[in-house]
Each structure stands twice: as C-alpha cells, then as structure tokens.
C-alpha cells in the first residue's frame, strides 16, 4: 500500500491512449451511421476520468473499443505501450447490467476471471476472499446473485473486476441501474477506497450521463457530443474529496456543464435531431410527458421559463429524459432551448392551458407543419382513394436516409405522435397507415 501512495505522488505516466478513433455501425454505404468521429484522448495514472454524454453519444461504444471488445473502424488504441487488438490483461470492466452469472455463487463469480486466467484454485480463493472483503461483501460468499439487491450485485461486479488486479478499471454507467440511495452509497464507498489508495488499480474511466456523478467522482470530465460522438469539451475538477454537492464551486461547475451540453444543441439548428426533412431521426417520447412538461413550465415558479438543472431536480427526471422531451417540444415549436434554459413559446403557453380536445387539435396542426415525415405520410394517405398505405413503403424511404434501427425507432415515434394528434391511424396487424377513425 505504501508503494501505491508513493507511486501516486510519482506523477502522471500515460496508461492508455485513444488515437483518432472513428466508428460506424450498419452495413452498406447509404445507411451507415457514424457513431464516433475522430476521438482522441489519453488516460494517465492516478486519475479518474469521466466520459459524459447523452444516450446515443457513443460513449459505451468508445468504452468497448478501449476494452478491446470492439474493433474501431478507424484509429487505434494503445494500452501500456501495446496496441489493443482484443481484450487485454490489465483492463477490467464493470457493467451497467452487472453481467453476473446467475448460476454461480458470489464467490464463484468473483473467482471467475481468475479461473479464466488459469490461476490455481487455492490462490484463486485467497484473492477472491480478499476482494470480497475489500468491497464489503463478507457473509454473502455463498449467495446467488438472484438473492441479492441491486447494490449488492454491483458490489460483486466490482469485486470481480478488482480481483484480477487490473491497472485500469472501466466502468459503464455502473450506478445507473440502482436507486438513488444505493447508488450514492456505492459511489462514496468506491471513492473512499480510491482516495485511501486501497484499490489495486492505477486509473478509472467512468462512462456516465449523470453530470453530478461525473463532478462528484472525477478529476477530469470529457464531454462527448451526440450524433456523431465527438469530444467537445474538457473540464478539470480540482475539488478535494470528499466533495460536497452543495458547495458553490461544485454547483457552478455543474451549471457550466449543463450549459455546455445544451448550448451545443442550439448551435446545431435547424434541429438537434440528426438529419433534415423526411430523413430526420426521431426518438419516441410519451405524449403525456410532453403535455406534463408544458404544464409544469407554464405554472409557477417557472412561469414559462426554467433552468434545466433546477427542472431535473424538481421533476425527478434524468437529464437525458428531460432533454429528449424538451427537444421534442422545440421541434414542435412549443418551446425553445438555450443556455441551459428551456422557455415556452406562445403556442406552448396556449397548449398548456387547453383542454383535451383543443390540445389534440393544436398538436395535430403542429405535427403536420413541423414534422416533415408526418406531413408526408398524411399527404400520401389523402391522395390515395383507399386512404391506406403500407408502412413498408415509408420504411424504405426512411432507410434511404438512415440505418434500419433508426428507421424503426423513427417510425415508432411517428406512430405514437400521430395517434395522439389523430393525424392518421396505424394498424399493427396489417402494418398499414390509414385515415380510418373508429367511431
């Protein structure tokens, strides 16, 4: 342990570098989707670095490329001076879904990685018990994962990663499947171990979409933009541990990052949605939540304008979900996003104050005016004598602009929006759009 502390004072050697990495998903040239665009970064010893981005920013893809689980389309990764061409020793990973083997006990799960390395049984057991002890799982050695709570399961995930004595620990949203209290306990426990130098690792890379989590835990935060993923900003956090969320410096930094994350959306007009016109990729949002958000914004204390960090707190929403809603409102011209604020437009204010039927009518007008694919489908249905059209036809059109998966997601969003606005109907069994209205 002493050696580790000395090591830490020793300074910053580079542990892992990512050099000009780009990654695309999808086959064929037309429907390829760029996930990561020319990303470069370096991880040094003795630091915790966060990769912060919204869902779809490719941060998990980047993590898997670093872990050697994925081969990038372009660029290279170097770990400890050696190029990464597949999973390497010295890098361990903690999964969002824990990824424990349900048929093995806690002890066997922790031993699992060592067994894969061919470590002898006695040695395996000794090291596994030490890791279990370190991470606070004593007494649970013989339990099966399904008998444990989420927090305990993720502790097993940590123990399994640490037992191999990796140099680098990669964490893929490790706390996001846990409830708020459990997540906080696990974060502080992990930070304590790190600060006291009791973890057998030299650096941690944390992938997260939670801004406060990033500020709470890391020494450096790399901001990853969406569509495609690109590193747009870097923040240094020099606050001493343990950090206080209410500390003004902490708050200021959180606000700063919020601004940065939403400002980027503003720059990319005319839509934060990738693609233009019919080729716009839409994500499904709940129409109830849209209405609920306009109501909350129209009411005091916001009276039409709210600060995003405040709003996430007040509405108990993840930033990601809130932004998705706000962006849909923006697309429909019910709200505008700027500088970390969301502001209702005139139409948005009216929408918030309306009854159910009026609301649907206004929503319908805005859908047809502002969402090209919906206007297009409606036009086709109006023109046809039968007023019906197969979904496959529009899916083909969408796939000229985007990959299959995005086309599917966009169609699902279209169906949900069009149903709420009663623009057209969708029949799942025959897979057609129509103007039928059940009376």
């Amino acid at each position, binding site marked *: 342990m002493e050696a580790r502390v000395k090591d830490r004072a020793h300074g910053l050697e580079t542990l892992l570098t990512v050099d000009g990495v780009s990654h695309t998903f999808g086959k064929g040239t037309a429907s390829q989707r760029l996930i990561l665009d020319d990303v470069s970064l370096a991880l040094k010893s003795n630091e915790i670095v966060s990769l912060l981005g919204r869902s779809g920013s490719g941060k998990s893809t980047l993590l898997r490329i670093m872990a*050697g689980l994925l081969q990038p389309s372009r660029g290279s990764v170097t770990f400890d001076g050696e190029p990464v061409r*597949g999973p390497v020793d010295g890098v361990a990973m903690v999964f969002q879904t824990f990824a424990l083997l349900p048929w093995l006990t806690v002890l066997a799960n922790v031993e699992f990685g060592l067994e*894969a390395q061919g470590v002898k049984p006695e040695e395996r057991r000794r090291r596994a018990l030490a890791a279990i002890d370190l991470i606070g799982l004593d007494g649970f050695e013989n339990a099966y994962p399904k008998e444990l709570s989420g927090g305990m399961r993720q502790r097993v995930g940590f123990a399994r990663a640490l037992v191999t004595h990796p140099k680098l620990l990669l964490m893929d949203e490790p706390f996001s499947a846990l409830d708020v209290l459990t997540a906080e306990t696990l974060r502080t426990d992990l930070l304590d171990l790190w600060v006291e130098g009791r973890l057998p690792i030299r650096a941690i890379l944390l992938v997260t979409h939670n801004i406060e989590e990033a500020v709470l835990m890391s020494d450096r935060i790399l901001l990853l933009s969406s569509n495609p993923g690109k590193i747009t900003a870097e923040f240094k956090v020099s606050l001493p541990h343990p950090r206080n969320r209410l500390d003004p410096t902490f708050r200021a930094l959180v606000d700063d990052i919020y601004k940065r994350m939403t400002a980027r959306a503003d720059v990319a007009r005319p839509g934060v949605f990738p693609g233009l016109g019919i080729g716009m990729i839409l994500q499904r949002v709940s129409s109830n939540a849209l209405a609920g958000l306009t109501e909350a914004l129209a009411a005091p204390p916001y009276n039409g304008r709210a600060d995003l960090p405040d709003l996430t707190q007040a509405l108990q929403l993840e930033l990601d979900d809130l932004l998705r809603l706000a962006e849909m409102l923006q697309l429909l011209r019910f709200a505008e996003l700027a500088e970390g604020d969301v502001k209702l437009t005139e139409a948005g204010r009216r929408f918030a104050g309306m009854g159910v039927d009026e609301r649907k009518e206004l929503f319908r007008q805005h859908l047809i005016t502002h969402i090209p694919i919906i206007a297009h489908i409606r036009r086709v249905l109006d023109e046809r004598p039968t007023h019906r059209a197969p979904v496959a036809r529009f899916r083909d059109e969408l796939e000229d602009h985007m990959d299959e998966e995005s086309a599917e997601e966009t169609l699902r969003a279209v169906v949900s929006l069009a149903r709420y606005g009663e623009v057209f109907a969708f029949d799942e069994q025959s897979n057609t759009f129509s103007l039928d209205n059940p009376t």
Partner: protein
Amino acid sequence: MIFLPRPAGPVPGTRPEAGASIPSRYDLLAFTILFAVLIAAIHGSREMEQPLAALELAPVSLSPQNLYEYALLSTLRMFAAIIASLIFTFVVATLAAKSRKAELVIVPALDILQSVPVLGFLSFTVTFFMGLFPGSRLGAELAAIFAIFTSQAWNMAFSFYQSLRTIPKDLDEVSRHFRLSGWMRFWRIEAPFATPGLVWNTMMSMSGGWFFVVASEAITVGDTKVVLPGLGSYLALAIEKEDLTAVAWAIFAMGIVILIYDQLVFRPIVAWADKFRAEQTATSEKPRSWVYDIFRRSGLLRFAGAQFSEISDWFGRAILAATRRRAPTVAQTPGRWGDYVWTGVVIAAAGWGLWTIIAFVRTNLGMDDVITAFALGLVTLLRVLVLIALASLIWVPLGVWIGLRPWAAERVQPLAQFLAAFPANVLFPFFVVVIATFHLNPNVWLSPLMILGTQWYILFNVIAGASAFPNDLREAATLMKASPRQWWRDVILPGVFPYYVTGALTAAGGSWNASIVAEVVSWGSTKIEAAGLGAYIAKATEAGDMARVVLSITVMSLFVMALNRLLWRRLYRFAEHRLRFE
C-alpha cells in the same frame, strides 16, 4: 455431467453444515440409489451383449415375475438413448451455433427431422444396425435405442442451438472480456444458460421416448422378426396370446417405471436446473425434489462433487495452457464467397439426394401409388385435425377450470404430466378388444387411439396457462360484470392461448407418429385396420416393401411440415406477438 452443482466449500464467515465429515443417513440413501442404478446398469449391459442365438433359448415369457427385469431393460434403453441424445445435442448444436457453414445444413435438417415420423424409419434402422453387428443382439439393441434417440435428439438439439444463439449480450461480453477459452465458455456460460430449455425439452420428449421403447422392442421387417426382452415385447406377446391379464400387468409395470423415473431422475434434474434460469429475480415457486435434497445434503456426495470439480478444473486449466497462447481474437466478418460456394455445394448435394429418391421410387412405383399415398395422407390429416379440435373442446374448459383453482391444479397437474409421459400404445389392446367385440367401424373408432397419449399436452399446458393468468385481470373482469361469453372470448381464452398452442402443436406432432401404430392394430389373430397413411406405412414396413416405406414417409413428412408451417407456426407467432403478458 461437468456442470454438477458446484460445491461451495466452507469459507470463512460461513458455518459448515453440522456433521459434514461423518456419513449421515442422507449418504446412506443416496448411496443405495446410486449403487442400485450402477448394479442394474452392469447387469443389464452384460445381457445386451449376448448373441442372438441365446435369445431364443430364453424367450420372452408372460409370467409377471419377469416384469422387473423387462422394465429394467426398457429403462436402460431409455437411458442409453438420452445419453446419446445429449452427446448429439452438445456436438451438433454447438457446431451449428459456432460455424455458419454447418449452421446452413444443420438447422434446416433438424427442422425437417423434427417433423419426420421416425416410427416409419424403424424398418431401415433395424436392417442397418443388424447388418452392422451380424449375429449379435447388440445390433437390435442399437436399433431400438436409435429409435428412442430419434424421438428426442432433434428437439433437444434445436433447443440447445437456440439457447446458444440467444446468450445475453452482457454475458457474451463478460466471456470475451475475460478471454475465456472455448472450453470454459462452453461449460461456464453456454451450457448453463441452455440447461433450463434443454431439460424442459427433454421432458417434453419423454412421452415419445416411452412410446418408442414399446414400439421398437418387437418389430417385424419382412422376414426378420426382432424381439428384445423388455416391456414392449412383453406387451406384444400378450397381444399375440390374447392375454388381458398380462396386458394389465404391462400397464401396471409401465406406470411404476414412469413414476420411479420421474421421482429419481427428472424431478432432481428439474430442481437442479432451476438455478440456471437467467432471470435475476427470485421466483416464488421453486421446483422441489426430495431426491435432490438428499443429494445436496449428503456430505460424501458433496465431497465427490468437489473432487470431480477439481479434476474438471485441472482439465480446464490444461486446455487453457494449450490454447491461451493464441493471439486474442476480435469478431471478424467471414468471406461472403466461401458462403456462396458452400451453399452451392449443399444445394447440389440436396438435389442429388432428391434425384436418388425420385429415381428409386419411380423404378419401383407408379404415379397411382403417389396419388394413393397423398389421398391416405388427407384422411389421416382429417383425423388429426378433428381429434385435436375434439380434445380442445374437452380439455380447454376443464384445464381453465382446474388452472384457476390452485388446489385443483396442484393435484391434477402431476397426473396430467404422468399421463402425457405414459405410452398410450400400452393401452391400445383394451380399445381393440372393445372394437372387435362390438364390431365397431374401425375408421371412426380407431381414431381416438392416435390422440390417447398426446391429448394430455393440451390439458397440462392449458392448466399452466390458467394458473399463470394475472389475478388483477380476473378481478377487473369480475368487477365489470363480464358476461360468461365475454369472459371466455376476451379474457381467459386469449390469456391461455399461447400455452394452448404449445400444447396443441406437441399433441398434433405426436398424433401423426401415433397413427403408424394406431391405424393398424391386432388382437391375437384379429386384425383391425383403418384407412390412412399410418396404416399404409405400417403395412409397407411389415411387408418389407422399401419403396412404399420411403414414399409414404416422405408424404407424411410433407403433411406434417405443411401443417406446422401453415397452421401452428402462424398461431404461435400470433400468440407470441399479441397475447403474451410482458
């Protein structure tokens, strides 16, 4: 048996169970069972090696004292077939899941083999295996074992293959992340993940298994008559001698064997397999088995398990040492061209095969034979459909009634499963006697025999569906005062439909197979026959008419496949898509 329950040895902080070091009564029980099985196996296998000449010295006799030995021999055949099926499953299904080229051939082949009425193949396999070991009983034994094997292996392999293809993404990533050797990945991730599905499928094939044991122990192919001592040949002799008491004894013995098999083999395996279910939630109902509990509590057995796991561990490390040095691999896309060439080769081989069959049938048969076979196929198809409809009319309402009442379901469910496993062909003689005595129309009254054994699948699946029906939906329907009509049409029938389809599909498949033994039956010298494709196959087999056997089996396979594709799969997809509770 590598994935034995891994004994978690005493670790600091946990109290080792009291008395683990001295033999307990559980040890005694477990060992009695183990030794009994071992002795029986040695005894039985020694007898199987005897030359055919010796068989004639000790022919099957109808005295009930011999039943114990016959039951034992039949059970051993069953075991041998299950072990063969497991090995086949592990090798073939794994190959299909790992190699795209193998997959191209294996998956369709399994799919077709699942719908081939293997009972009709007995004539080929008996001739083949007898030729392999001339003069020895081993050939006939292998033919019987192979017949049982064919009733299980295909769907076991299919289930295993599908599990391998649906390994959750995170487990796959863990295995790649830790750079597991292929050996370790198979035994630690793939095999455990596939175990629940495999066990379930093996259980569903059990009925077929016993059915085939009975059917394959006494076969006549042309001039060759093969009689292997066992429950099936005992029954055949009883039928020949018109001895109803002996038939009753056979039924009794069969019942006991199935009960013992269930208690000693399947229950423990199901209870053990429960821990491999991938859901991370604790279920309210755990399958229990007293035998499994004894095995788990037995310290000596745990010790043996630990030794075993140490050996397999050592073995795993040896393999690791031999293979680890290779460079880490990243998933790569294989060449398209190789695939095209391979597909071409496969298509060419299939074309050649088809040509051979057509040529063979053409030189021996005419067009009118083909038309006859198809016409008879339609008759049997009609029987299957009518019988499934009738069985559904009876068992769906009853199954719903039972399933909604936990106390009834608890009692009836094991009975339904027992009846599904019971080979219906053992019961045939009673029906035949009735039909012969009252001179009933065989075309109508032989039909129920086809579904005698398979209807229980409908019953126990519907019971399972009704038991799983969400209580809040029932309460909502009650509060809204749903009329009986509404309640059946909109509430319970859609709710149990996915389960019903599974049951009806299995029942229909089994009925096709059963038609081969159910459309022609005999009692002593009396022979009763119904018109149908099953009777056609049975008669062609008995006459040793290979051309007609090939033709009729091909036609029946076509019927089964068409029915599967056009009816059952559509219903299944509809049920999965629209009627599943998430």
